[in-house]
């Protein structure tokens, strides 16, 4: 439990955005998503791999994702997650709002430095 609280999401919904962004190029299964986020973030964001799954369920329920059976890179039958049109739209909205937020934070940080 302690690990969970130390590496909590930066802000609510961040994990979801990363998953959506990851799935934008191609459908993936759970393990691949986790590895992808880990590699890209250069282990800066150490998310607990398991926390992916409740997030995936939430997104399935919201209709942003679909799931189907597929084959992994290791030729295993696995459950593949795929972005829906709704999910794509949501990602666009979230990205712009996240970017605005970071722009704002950066500006504040820049000012306080001087």
């Amino acid at each position: 439990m302690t690990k969970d609280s130390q590496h909590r999401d930066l802000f609510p919904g961040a994990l979801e955005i990363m998953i959506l962004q990851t799935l934008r190029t191609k459908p993936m299964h759970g393990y691949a998503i986790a590895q992808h986020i880990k590699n890209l973030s250069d282990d800066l964001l150490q998310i607990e791999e398991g926390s992916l799954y409740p997030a995936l369920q939430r997104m399935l329920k919201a209709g942003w994702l679909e799931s189907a059976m597929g084959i992994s890179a290791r030729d295993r039958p696995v459950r593949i997650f795929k972005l829906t049109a709704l999910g794509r739209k949501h990602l666009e909205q979230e990205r712009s709002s996240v970017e605005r937020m970071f722009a704002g934070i950066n500006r504040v940080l820049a000012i306080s430095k001087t």
Partner: protein
Amino acid sequence: MDWLNRIFRRDRLYAEVSQSIQEHLEEKIEVLMEKGMSREEASRAARLEFGNVTRIEERSREVWQWPKLESVWADLRLALQQFMASPAFTLTALATLALGIGATTAIFSVVNTVLLKPLAYPDPDRLALFFETDGQREFSAVSIPEFHFWQEQSNLFQDLSASDTDSVGLNLAGDHPEVVHGLHVTENYFHLFGAQTVLGRTFTTVEENLNGGRTAVLSYDLWKNHFASDPSILGKSISLGGDPYTVIGVAGQQFQTELGADLWLPLQADPNSTDVTPFFRVVGRLKPGVTLIQANAQLKLAAVNFRRRYPAVNRRMYFVVRPLQDAIVGNSRSSLLLLLGGVGFVLLIACANLASLQLIRASGRKREFAIRASLGASQGRIVRQLLTESVLLSLIGGLLGLGLGELAVRLLLTVSSGDIPRLGVNGSAVGLDWRVLAFTLTLSVLTGLAFGLAPARGASNFDLSTALKESGRAAGTGFHQQRARALLVVGEAALAVVLTVCAALFIRTFIALQSVNPGFSSHNVLTMQMALTGPRFHQTAPVAQLVREARQRINALPGVMNSATTASLPLQAVHRIPVDVLGRPAGSAPNTGSTQWLAVSPGYLSVFEIPLLRGRDFNQNDSGTSPPVVIINQTMGKMFWPRQNPLGQQILLGKGMPPMFADRPREVVGIVGDVLTDGLDATVQPMAIVPQAQVPDGITDISDRMEPIHWVLRTSVEPQQLNASVKEQLLEASGGIPTSETRTMRDIVSRSIALQNFDMQLLSIFSVSALLLAAVGIYGLMAYSVQQRAQEIGVRMALGADREKIRNMVIWQGMRLALAGAVIGVGAALTITHLIATFLFGVKSWDPAVFLTVPMLLSCVALIAVWVPAHRGSRMDPMQTLRAE
């Protein structure tokens, strides 16, 4: 069947989640093993990076669950286990809840029946009762021309029906003559109130016509009881007051209006009537879309036209309509709401006690919560668990309360119903319906939240590690928790004071009412009614003859000291009539006005022991042929002859009334003490008393049609003993006219204050309960605190504090709370008792005696409650308590 599909789909989804997680782990292990780890190492590393599998599966599943339904179920099971584990707490809490919610439910079910349940007629909310008003008082007794005038306002009302203001006693002849209650109604009365018939039909315009003949519609009960449900009753003739009437119909079993009638007769109003004497009651149904405000606005404007047509009526008079239900409920509305408020206070205090109990329990369970928190339960989850427990508890308590409340309300209404309308015989109309059920359910949930919220908040706000480190016993002495309980006790005491102040004011009111001198003696007085309907009694002389003969017979009975007849009894409504002092120049002194009017036979003053202050009483010589005389009361004497002896003066009664009521000038022959009419809390009005034998024929005619006369007897024995023999004598003397409504005057007096009595009794019960609950609250707090501080007390004793000092310390700590509550309660009571000022009589809403006694009473009760734990504390053996630690 969507939810069924969802359940199956959910099972599939759960399986998918578990499967995905397994796949994930296996792939991870495979990768790690490829990097050279053993299977065991890889498996451990994978799980470490993945997190708690069970927990993650659970959280993933929760996404698909209904709003926490499954976890609510788990909470419920846990709550039940908790109850089983501490039966003493559970039983105490349930008993408190059942009593609190039960009492509230009982009062609410009366409120529901009287105020909330719609009238049992079609479109009840559009039924309106008509009033004539001068802007200050409203009179529901109206006249035929007014009725016809309102019928002309056809854009407002779609159905308008007139009836007598009250049912008249009619003598139904037969083998067993009995008084039945008949109501004269217009033909659409039955349609307006949605009456069905089991036999025949109701009136039509044919019967409504002035020459429509004598017909009657029987009530179901009369048909069943008096006529043995005779299926061939239609067309048969029955004798009412000596006149034959043809039965044309029998009303449905359910049909009754609030006026109550055994049978209905056609009103047969003269369409050209100009008689503005108010003897009728008019109910109408508003047209759809017409509001009460619109109707009243138009009626007020239209009154101008009416006054133009009838110049004799009061120039300020206009018309209003009120919802029929409000008119029926009358002033019992405020009484009932007051009682509901009072019982609400009791429930609040009960809640405070339970919250206090919960706080103690919560402190005992601190370790349990800490362990659950360390196992991953969030604060919200623990709060929810606690709230689930208290709401479940109060729901069970509410269910018990519902049963208890039903029982209580039955018992209450059998003992006394306070003369509240719409309750039925002994409260038979009061029962469970969806409103009561919904109320009790809501109340239970709110109660549960109310007493569960504070402890739940307290329990969720704690430091995990300290809670775990603290030993189970010492937990709960925390300052915050103790302060919360102290505040609850202060609040309880304050509420109890407010409620007790109200109850005390009502008790004082009731005592004041009972000690009012009504101006007559009600001891050993028997009263009964006799209906003088029929052609025989259209004139004064035959009535006077009947009264004279019957009095002779009754007075001869052993045990009867004197007897008389009167048009109305003391404390009951009396007619008003214009009065003019003759031979006095206008303007010099009051020479005109109005007075109450009463017609009595000789013997009236002596039966009621009304003091004759000057002049003489009536006697047999005051007959229709002798000079007209009048006796006035003291108030009338002072009002019209402030500096003069009224005896020998001449007055004229009823000037300006229709010619058939015309009276002759009367000489004042006597002045008597004032007698209260309209109730014990009313003010004395001027009254003119005339000999029944000298009443104008027109007045005798109309009053005999409308109202019974009252026989009154002073007895030297218990009045009810003479009941049968008096009835028999009256039956013989009158040639077969039965009597009804036999009551002692004492009974009538106590009935006149039945509502105040009802209020006082219930408020007293509530206030005693409130005081007891507050005492229990203080006792509980102090007992617990003494137990918690056993060690401290032990140390103090070991250091030389004597027992008395310890006891006083505990007493002072408890009493400080009680006194704080008393002060707050007195302040609150001072600001709210003016709201109940209209209920009070003979006592001010800030009565100093009440405001001094009640806090003292509370202090005494609190002192007893504090004494016990204080005494126990001072008896502690310091060695034992110190060793126990």
